[in-house]
């Protein structure tokens, strides 16, 4: 597409990157077909191609208002458009740049700012968030619907805890994450037990925290970069000691950590380290797929009752990390029957804090997704990201779990 970026950005790193991305877009419109918001709203401005155009106008120096903001806010950053795009347009990078510029140009009204600040301060901090969940359960009836949906109805799933002592020569780090320890502590514990069985010791670096994705998508890209640097500092000593991988059990975090190298490329102190961290980062499904030889024999040692599950592949897994069919294969190897799910490429509406910031669209997407997931009458739903898990659970009578728990139970 023809571009003519304005002077304010043309010769900056962001400007150059945005220009290159814009120019790969040939305006074919394929991406609109798989964009959840375009499918719901039918407005060019609520689809990737229109958003690209809105960003292009802004970067070309045209006036922008809250109208552009509205349509960019509605974007889930699910990256379904990227999977579809034959031309290889890196939409989410353009969006990041666009949102950054937009934020400087179009101030948000106070009420919006407050919610965003609250979210970006509270969610990334487990020590605030965990008690808040407990407190939330007590005051749940008093909360507005949107927020109360976010708070699980019962105490977080019981965890059988981490393996007593695991001391294998093969060691991998795992990110604790910010909200997962509060809401689904068994996910990492189950992962640790599972890896222990195949001869890998998993451990957390206590100083590591939120991966940075939350703030990155809440108009706080600078703060997010600090989150990322802190994690790099926390992991680096272990990297030097030769950890094999940094394992992600939340695909949302995984997608973000895998981009550390890109996001910190202009920070001379961190660029190289970030690159290395990103290269070491693996989703748990990638780790297990690589160990399939060892895993599979363990999975057939015991008889299990038949189990029908529906798998929801988070956008951050299938579109962000482009991991497709891997989890499904592992579950099937564990004797699970997967029910067919129509439109598997569509987002469930969780999308980080989207469910809080765009409640109406988010709910519509969740309803559609749950209908699709339940269409094959599964006993439960499994997914690969804490955000999707809690979001879907809030609307589902059936349990929604991390798939790795199922595998671990079947060993």
């Amino acid at each position, binding site marked *: *597409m*023809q*571009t*003519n970026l304005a002077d304010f950005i043309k010769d900056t790193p962001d400007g150059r990157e945005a220009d290159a991305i814009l*120019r*790969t*877009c*040939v*305006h*074919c*419109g*394929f*991406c*609109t*077909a*798989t964009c959840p918001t375009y*499918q719901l*709203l*039918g*407005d*060019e*401005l609520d689809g990737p*191609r*229109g958003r690209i*155009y*809105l960003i292009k*106008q802004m970067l070309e120096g*045209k*006036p*922008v*208002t809250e*109208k*552009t903001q509205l349509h960019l806010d509605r974007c889930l950053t699910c990256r379904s458009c990227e999977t*579809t*795009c*034959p*031309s*290889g*347009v890196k939409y989410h990078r353009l969006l990041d740049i666009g949102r950054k510029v937009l934020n400087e140009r179009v101030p948000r009204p106070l009420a919006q700012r407050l919610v965003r600040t609250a979210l970006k301060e509270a969610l990334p901090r487990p020590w605030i968030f965990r008690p808040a969940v407990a407190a939330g359960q007590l005051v749940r009836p008093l909360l507005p619907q949107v927020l109360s949906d976010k708070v699980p109805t019962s105490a977080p799933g019981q965890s059988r805890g981490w393996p007593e002592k695991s001391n294998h020569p093969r060691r991998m780090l795992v990110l604790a994450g910010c909200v997962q320890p509060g809401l689904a502590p068994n996910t990492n514990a189950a992962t640790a037990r599972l890896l222990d069985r195949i001869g890998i010791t998993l451990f957390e670096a206590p100083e590591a925290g939120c991966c940075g994705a939350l703030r990155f998508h809440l108009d706080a890209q600078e703060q997010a970069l600090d989150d990322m640097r802190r994690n790099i500092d926390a992991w680096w000593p272990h990297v030097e000691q030769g950890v094999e991988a940094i394992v992600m059990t939340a695909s949302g975090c995984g997608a973000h950590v895998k981009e550390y190298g890109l996001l910190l490329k202009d920070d001379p102190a961190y660029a190289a380290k970030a690159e290395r961290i990103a290269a070491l980062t693996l989703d748990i499904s990638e780790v297990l797929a690589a160990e399939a030889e060892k895993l599979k024999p363990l999975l057939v040692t015991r008889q299990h009752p038949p189990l029908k599950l529906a798998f929801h592949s988070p956008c951050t897994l299938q579109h962000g990390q482009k991991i497709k069919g891997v989890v499904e294969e592992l579950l099937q190897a564990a004797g699970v029957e997967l029910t067919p799910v129509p439109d598997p490429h569509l987002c469930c509406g969780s999308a980080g804090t989207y469910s809080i910031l765009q409640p109406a669209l988010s709910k519509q997407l969740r309803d559609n997704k749950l209908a699709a997931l339940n269409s094959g009458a599964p006993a439960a739903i499994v997914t690969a990201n804490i955000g999707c898990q809690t979001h879907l659970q809030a609307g589902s009578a059936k349990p929604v779990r991390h798939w790795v728990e199922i595998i671990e139970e079947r060993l």
Partner: protein
Amino acid sequence: MAFANDVRFPVDRREILGRLQAILPRHLVLAEEEELRPYECDGLTAYRALPLIVVLPETETQVGAILKACHELKVPLVPRGAATGLSGGAMPHEDGVVLSLARFKKILKIDPLSRTAVVQPGVRNLAVSEAAAPYGLYYAPDPSSQIACTIGGNVAENSGGVHCLKYGLTVHNVLKVRGFTINGEAVEFGAEALDAAGLDLLAIINGSEGLLAVITEVTVKLTPKPELAQVVLAYFDDVQKAGNAVADVIAAGIIPGGLEMMDKPATHAVEPYVKAGYDLDAEAVLLCESDGTPVEVAEEIERMKAVLEKSGATSLVVSQNEAERLRFWAGRKAAFPAVGRITPDYLCMDGTIPRKRLAEMLEAIADLSVKYGLRCANVFHAGDGNLHPLIMYDANQPGELERATAFGSEILELSVKLGGTITGEHGVGVEKVDLMAAQFTPAEISAFHRLKAAFDEKGLLNPGKGIPTLARCREYTQTRGAAAVTPPPRF
């Protein structure tokens, strides 16, 4: 490139805006430049125009009322589906309203027994086949853009697909169209029966490029899925040999389910996206499909292989399962946008010529590529003789678009000279409106105008598209010279 529409209307923006806002809720009427810009073009970004207003109705009543308002106030109106069009058909009119049908996306009925589907115009082509799949049926016309393009747009363009040689174009697969005339009256063309009383107006609604009526409901035929389909990839070390092989296949009495071609630049562009495993050293690949019962397919594939081998194919690969077959096709279907990986911009030509002239045309394109200093990838609906040379250029380089356009015009003029047409399936739109003069006499152009007036006397539906004004024809003939525009002897 701003398109100088020579059909203009004195419009009172506030008046029409007021009328439209009374018909639709606020969020379905866009009127600020910031929101209108992204609507300024379709899949052909070289031509752009800013509309006055965009409306996004969701009911037929609203469509009727919008048309009435525009008709009364003499405001031009451009229907728009998914805007994947490649001829600027959905490009707005600067004095007018864009009527988006994107919110009409309900599949109203799938009837497996009568093998029909009733759908709203904003339903995506592929969504129809997906909805019909549980019944072993599908909607046969499959434009490469089928993931995104709408049925309304397909009817308006009479779109083809990669399986059209055997299964027909849109016009062959649509039974009935419900729509609205410019004065806001509902009207039905065709019938659930195989024909309707009176003139075959359905035939002219197909391919009418939004100039005759606004389509609000379409009844399509569904086709039973063949038991088996397999595709042969035939590689050639020479593009012209591949071109000749196409004619050889047909000459052997075979009507393949699909017969498509890509040249080396095209396979190089798509391979990183689809990872189909195309042989990247070959100069061209033909995709030749057979479908039917397993025995039938096995027999036909053998015949195809024999012909292709004789025509000089250097190697043949047959798809071994459905997933692989789909992957082979996915590359072909994503070819245009995938070319976006190797060039910032392209123009996609759409001439159709007699199959036996394919090799000749390919040679001419290669020469023109040198003449204009622009690269060109070739993707063909070879079985139909429908060419899609993709002329690569960089819109940011001054002069390149103009060169690309001239390159394209020469290809299309040659198509006419070789006994073909300037457009096989993408429509005339704004892009080829001048080139109509290369194919039709002024008397024929006038006949088209009269036909248009029979539906839309004031010329409000998609003005300036499809059929050139006679002034444009004269100008074209003068600038291009008679040689370029004289069709082969006709009478």
